[in-house]
């Protein structure tokens, strides 16, 4: 093959790959953009482009007490589940990440299994279990269910951070006379903190957004935001939901930017 042909071929490869990549990136972003634009419509329907622009549907959100009630429940459950996931997950990560024992490997697979098992099956199982032991559906049962499905994110990120921790640092600290607790507080914790935080961030987001577990473990008194929105959307296409969605999208982007600044989220997730 001549050099000229070679260059042409290389160019064709690069153009095809780049064009597909850019189209795919547009495909990923555009739905979110569309929602934000539509939410500022002055009309009553989700027509695109909107006939005119206004902030009326955002004002409408102030009166949507059902959505606000559900949002409050979702925040409370997500905060508790994330807190529990951090405490239980970090302790478990310390135990399993530096151990070569078979028990540690088995525990690791057990703690990761909620990621692959269909969460809906777990939701149904949890509902039947709680009704068997006589624990009525409440925010408590939601917190327990969410913790089980969110803790893998904390464990995975903390284990990854611990794997990069130099064992010699721990030895040096001990040689210099530091107690294990002191070493943990002053050496281990600061070094693995970004890993814990990014794991906790993903755990929080996935609890806030959880449908399959909440679907079975909530009732009218413990309504959760994603379920409320889903049920509203099944009935009719409400522009209020577009306004709420756009608030959630902007909040997500803001949180992502903060996480990127503080923990380097993107580098952490691409390993």
């Amino acid at each position, binding site marked *: 093959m001549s050099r000229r042909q070679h260059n042409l071929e290389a160019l064709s490869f690069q153009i095809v790959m780049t064009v597909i990549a850019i189209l795919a990136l547009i495909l990923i972003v555009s739905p979110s953009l569309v929602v934000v634009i539509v939410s500022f419509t002055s009309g009553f329907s989700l027509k695109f482009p909107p006939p005119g622009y206004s902030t009326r549907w955002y004002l409408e959100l102030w009166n949507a007490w059902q959505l606000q009630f559900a949002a409050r429940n979702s925040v409370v459950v997500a905060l508790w589940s994330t807190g529990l996931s951090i405490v239980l997950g970090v*302790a478990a990560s310390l135990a399993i990440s530096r151990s070569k024992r078979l028990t540690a490997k088995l525990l690791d697979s057990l703690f990761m299994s909620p990621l692959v098992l269909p969460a809906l099956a777990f939701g*149904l199982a949890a509902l039947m279990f709680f009704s068997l032991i006589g624990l009525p559906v409440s925010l408590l049962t939601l917190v327990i269910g969410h913790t089980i499905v969110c803790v893998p994110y904390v464990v995975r990120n903390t284990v990854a951070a611990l794997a990069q921790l130099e064992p010699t640092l721990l030895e040096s600290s001990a040689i210099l006379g530091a107690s294990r607790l002191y070493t943990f507080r002053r050496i281990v914790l600061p070094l693995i903190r970004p890993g814990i935080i990014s794991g906790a961030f993903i755990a929080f987001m996935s609890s806030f957004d959880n449908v399959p577990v909440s679907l079975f473990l909530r009732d009218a008194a413990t309504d959760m935001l994603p379920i409320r929105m889903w049920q509203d959307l099944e009935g009719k296409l409400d522009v209020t939901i577009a306004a709420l969605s756009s608030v959630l999208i902007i909040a997500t982007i803001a949180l992502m930017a903060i996480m990127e600044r503080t923990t380097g989220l993107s580098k952490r997730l*691409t390993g």
Partner: protein
Amino acid sequence: MKSATTAPGDVTSFSLGLALPLGAAFAIFFVLPLAQLLYLSLHNDTAATVWGLGQYIKFLTDPFSLSVLGSTLLLGAEVTLACLVLGYPIAWLYQRSGSRVQTLIIMIVLLPLLTSVVVRTFAWIVILGRQGIINSVLQSLGLIGTPLRMIYTQGGLIAALAQVQMPLMVLPLITAIGRIDPNLSDASASLGAGSWRTFVKVLLPLSMPGIIAGCTLTYAAAITAFITQSLVGGGQMLFMPMYLYQQASTLQNWPFAAAISIIFLFAVLAIVALFSTLGRRARGYGDIR
């Protein structure tokens, strides 16, 4: 020597006992409920007094149930393929970009992963709906007279699911492609292979672990995506998660719902196991070089 990592005075490892609280929580609130689910599915009557495989026989001999299972597994395969075809170039572009563009790409890819699933799905209703963007653009260009029906179709559902699950494919691919020695591509080129040939013979096989990890994650996520399936798929198409939910919530047929859950769970596990077997083979292939 052999006790170097397990000696009681070892300061570089932590006590396994620290895993006890989470282990106990998983035993009580994860393993026990799933065991109870299995127990319940092995009963023929709703009150769970008669043991038997009745629920499983009912599912596996009912053409309707089997078609729900089949279309769910097929849907997963279609979405996974779409994610791979669109996601691989993204990961490829990421590895060739400067760090600013890299951060931008990652942020774009992560956005759907971190936005609420109802919001992401809702966006697709706005795009595909009768008055949605695609229809209004086509109508204003005079290409179509009446709005096309895109929502509640298989194609619309695949597009929506592919967008939603894309990060699960792209992230492992980025990691895998990043681990490939760039010299190998240069070596292939200097030995006379063109870019496409190098891609098929060098890049693709060496990124196989990432492809398999990505496929496993997207497949499992696509077939369990309850909200997107129900809102974009609508009432016309029934998939396993909705089938399970209807049997449990609307019809209160818990033993049958439990059996559906177990069958669904094993279907997912079988797919994951299949992919991980392929993954081990691929790693072996990569090691030979």
